């Protein structure tokens, strides 16, 4: 590899120094000689410095390969809820193409309710999955059969390989896919040399003839118009130097090129060039190297490129923007054909090959295919979580493979719901486009974060409200108050009677504070669950005061809230600011029935070579007894039947049971809804960035968006826990008496065994 060892170089340097000292003594009386020697010394030192630069950078060259972030793979097994629409979406997102008759990996064909998919091979974190020939049958929104369509055997479980959902770029946003010289087709090399550097294999890094020719042209023009750069020089320019054209830079470039050629083989330099060269732009992403360019323009690995495609790429080396095959089709085509002619002149292809290649049209992908989706809000969260374990440089340059929990289908549905509903609500309330929104969707069972929307324009990478908007949570905090009560099992059940009456307290500023109910009315003595499902403020404040702030703050801690909670009465009504992410964590613990699971976006991180780097195992901790949370959840289910969110009865299909809570803040500045099914937790927020009243309550703003998402993602309904410690009853809402199950206004509630109300009442129609 290297031609000189550092030890030898040091020895040489020492020898040079001592000999110079002797010469200096002899030539003391020759001033010009001294000046000359001093300059020579400076020059030599400079070259030594450059030599060090070139070698240290080239040897330790860490190809800046951004980390690649994968979505979760789609699991396929019998019984999996899956619609035709979702399957087609998943296939499209993972880059599968519809075909009529093609059993190649990456293609699928549909006939009736069945899909034949040739799943590409993939190295998962838990092993290699070879190409699979899978027939998937869908019936009534579920997978009804999965078989191998070649040998007709049943397949118990198989995964579609995950789609690439994002990359983590360094600030310059260079992206590349590394290629080895041996994988690059010969034609690509010959085309490149024919066009850019014919004497590549014979020169020493600089081609004096070419430079002279360029110099003449430049002097004639009075400015730098032509380059006589060899590939080595171009590489040096990209590697070490700035883009600015100047004489000093030219000088450095020449010296460094010579040094590079001195130390490294031609093949190493060529391979580096193939990976380094800039070949286009995808919005902010810079396409570097032939490996990525081949994917970007043709969706092919570089070794599958055809002659005309190779010529198209080589044509762009001179100016990727000027010869952009989408924007300047004709220009690229002309240049491409010049490349082909040059190849023919150099004898690397025959006249016949050249003729055929030239006759071909430009084969670049349709432009629409190249625009990659972007999920800035989700990536933001993922990046923050990664930065707890990794240096920024490792993420942007080591080519790490990050397997995330991202669910592209859920994200799509969440984005659509936000885009539609926010526009509509904004107009209805004359908010002039200032209404903003955020959505977080997680898996209730393992706290996988599936989707994040942080702006009404979800692809806009600005202020991420899902993570950073710190807003009062309003009534979303109430479940913590009622849960605190339920945990005192000898004092409270859901049917315990509490008071909803006027109350006046001293607030933190010393002023008197008299909370009112949303309707303005007080309701007197009512069962505990009624106060929760109808979100009565006065009853909640009274209950909270009797429980004590400390115990409520403790419950909030146990639900996963780490932020300091001010111990003031207004806290009981949600005068506490939290981010949507924190609210999600709180409700995650409710959906996890008292087990805290930190919300996470990362499943596994592998190195570029596929070696496991870090596993993010399931971590749970029980902080609240499951029975108390199950009792609370039965009341939160009633919120969606007879409470503030009763519109869900018509917004959602009848069999889709959910639990949730509305939240509205003072003067309707924030509209919240947090709730979950048996599989998905969704938190939606609406408000404006400058905290203006939006005229929307939790149930008129955030709720419809929430319902829209819940309805469209395939989800398991919430289910009641029927275990040994619980019993269930229908309870009427005035006195908390037990009534018959055919009473439609009654609430279906959980009680600890033998702690249910003793009295029977009559149904209130």
């Amino acid at each position: 590899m290297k031609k000189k060892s550092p030890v030898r170089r040091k020895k040489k340097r020492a020898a040079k120094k001592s000999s110079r000292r002797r010469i200096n003594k002899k030539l003391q009386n020759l001033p010009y000689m001294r000046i000359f020697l001093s300059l020579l010394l400076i020059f030599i030192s400079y070259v030594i410095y450059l030599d060090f630069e070139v070698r240290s950078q080239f040897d330790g060259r860490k190809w800046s390969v951004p980390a690649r972030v994968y979505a979760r793979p789609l699991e396929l097994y019998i019984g999996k809820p899956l619609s035709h629409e979702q399957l087609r979406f998943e296939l499209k997102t993972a880059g599968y193409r519809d075909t009529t008759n093609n059993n190649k990996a990456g293609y699928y064909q549909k006939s009736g309710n069945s899909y034949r998919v040739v799943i590409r091979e993939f190295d998962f974190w838990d092993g290699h999955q070879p190409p699979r020939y899978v027939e998937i049958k869908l019936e009534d929104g579920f997978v009804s059969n999965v078989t191998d369509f070649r040998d007709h055997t049943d397949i118990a479980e198989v995964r579609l390989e995950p789609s690439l959902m994002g990359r983590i770029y360094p600030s310059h946003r260079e992206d590349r896919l590394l290629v080895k010289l041996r994988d690059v087709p010969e034609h690509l090399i010959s085309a490149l040399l024919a066009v850019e550097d014919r004497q590549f294999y014979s020169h020493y890094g600089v081609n004096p003839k070419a430079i002279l020719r360029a110099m003449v042209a430049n002097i004639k023009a009075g400015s730098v118009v032509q380059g006589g750069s060899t590939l080595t020089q171009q590489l040096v320019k990209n590697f070490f130097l700035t883009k600015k054209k100047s004489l000093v830079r030219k000088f450095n470039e020449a010296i460094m090129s010579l040094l590079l050629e001195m130390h490294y083989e031609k093949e190493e330099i060529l391979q580096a060039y193939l990976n380094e060269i800039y070949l286009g732009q995808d919005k902010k992403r810079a396409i570097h190297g032939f490996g990525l360019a081949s994917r970007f323009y043709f969706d092919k690995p570089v070794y599958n490129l055809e002659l005309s495609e190779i010529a198209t790429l080589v044509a762009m080396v001179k100016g990727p923007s000027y010869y952009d095959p989408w924007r300047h089709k004709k220009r690229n085509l002309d240049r491409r054909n010049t490349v082909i002619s040059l190849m023919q002149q150099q004898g690397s292809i025959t006249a016949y090959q050249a003729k055929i290649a030239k006759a071909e049209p430009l084969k670049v992908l349709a432009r629409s295919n190249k625009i990659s989706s972007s999920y800035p809000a989700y990536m933001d969260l993922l990046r923050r979580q990664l930065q707890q374990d990794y240096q920024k440089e490792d993420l942007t340059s080591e080519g790490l493979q990050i397997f995330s929990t991202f669910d592209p289908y859920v994200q799509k549905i969440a984005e659509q719901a936000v885009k539609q509903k926010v526009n509509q609500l904004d107009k209805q309330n004359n908010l002039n486009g200032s209404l903003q929104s955020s959505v977080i969707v997680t898996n209730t069972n393992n706290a996988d974060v599936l989707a994040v929307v942080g702006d009404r324009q979800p692809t806009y990478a600005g202020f991420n409200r899902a993570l950073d908007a710190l807003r009062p949570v309003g009534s979303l905090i109430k479940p913590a108050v009622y849960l605190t009560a339920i945990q005192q099992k000898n004092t409270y059940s859901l049917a315990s009677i509490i008071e909803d009456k006027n109350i006046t307290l001293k607030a933190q500023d010393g002023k008197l504070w008299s909370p009112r109910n949303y309707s303005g009315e007080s309701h007197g003595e009512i069962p505990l669950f009624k106060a929760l499902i109808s979100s009565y403020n006065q009853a909640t404040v009274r209950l909270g005061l009797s429980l004590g702030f400390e115990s409520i703050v403790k419950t909030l801690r146990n639900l996963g809230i780490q932020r300091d909670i001010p111990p003031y009465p207004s806290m009981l009504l949600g005068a506490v600011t939290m981010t949507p992410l924190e609210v999600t964590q709180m409700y995650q613990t409710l959906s996890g029935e008292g087990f805290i699971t930190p919300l996470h976006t990362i499943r596994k991180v592998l190195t570029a070579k596929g070696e496991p780097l870090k596993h993010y195992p399931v971590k749970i901790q029980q902080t609240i007894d499951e029975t108390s949370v199950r009792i609370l959840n039965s009341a939160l289910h009633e919120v969606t039947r007879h409470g503030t969110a009763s519109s869900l009865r018509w917004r959602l299909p009848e069999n889709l049971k959910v639990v949730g809570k509305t939240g509205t803040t003072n003067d309707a500045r924030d509209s919240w809804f947090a709730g979950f099914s048996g599989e998905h937790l969704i938190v939606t927020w609406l408000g404006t960035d400058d905290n203006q009243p939006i005229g929307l309550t939790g149930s008129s703003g955030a709720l419809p968006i929430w319902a829209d998402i819940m309805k469209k993602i395939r989800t398991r309904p919430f289910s009641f826990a029927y275990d040994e410690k619980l019993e269930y009853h229908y309870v009427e809402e005035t006195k908390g008496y037990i009534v018959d199950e055919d009473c439609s206004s009654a609430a279906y509630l959980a009680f600890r065994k033998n702690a249910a109300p003793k009295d029977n009442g009559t149904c209130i129609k």
Partner: protein
Amino acid sequence: MKNLKLYIVRALILFLTTALIACQAPKDKTPGWTSDSGEVRPGPNTGKAVLALLNKARQASKKGSLSAAESHLERAIRIEPDNPTLWLYMAKLRLYAEKPSEAINLAKKALALSGRGGQTSIASQHSLQSDCWRVIAHAQQKMGNLKDAQTAQDKAKSLSY
């Protein structure tokens, strides 16, 4: 000369014995706890996909690859999150990986889920709960909490027939 031969033979025997001991896998110190304890009995409602993944997990854990076993199990849990057997298995793997406090929390999750749906028989619920308490007992013991270990052990016993 004879002495030298004897010396070489002795040295060789000593070396082989040491090598044999060194090659043996490190043994778990908990009495009655082996890698085979990772075996679980999936309930009757367990789906085909989960059974296949459990099988993969079992193979991996037999080979000593705990992290691969966990990965398979995580997939199984994503498919059947309410299946307590899967959480119990996960708890066992953590216990085996010397993470007793994580094992306790996972076993508690399995306990919380046992009988949640109310379809399985009381006997099989109790047998699963007994297994959970046994894992908790082992884990408490590993952490040096002998009293808690004893309590858990007693619960395990009271639930097994």
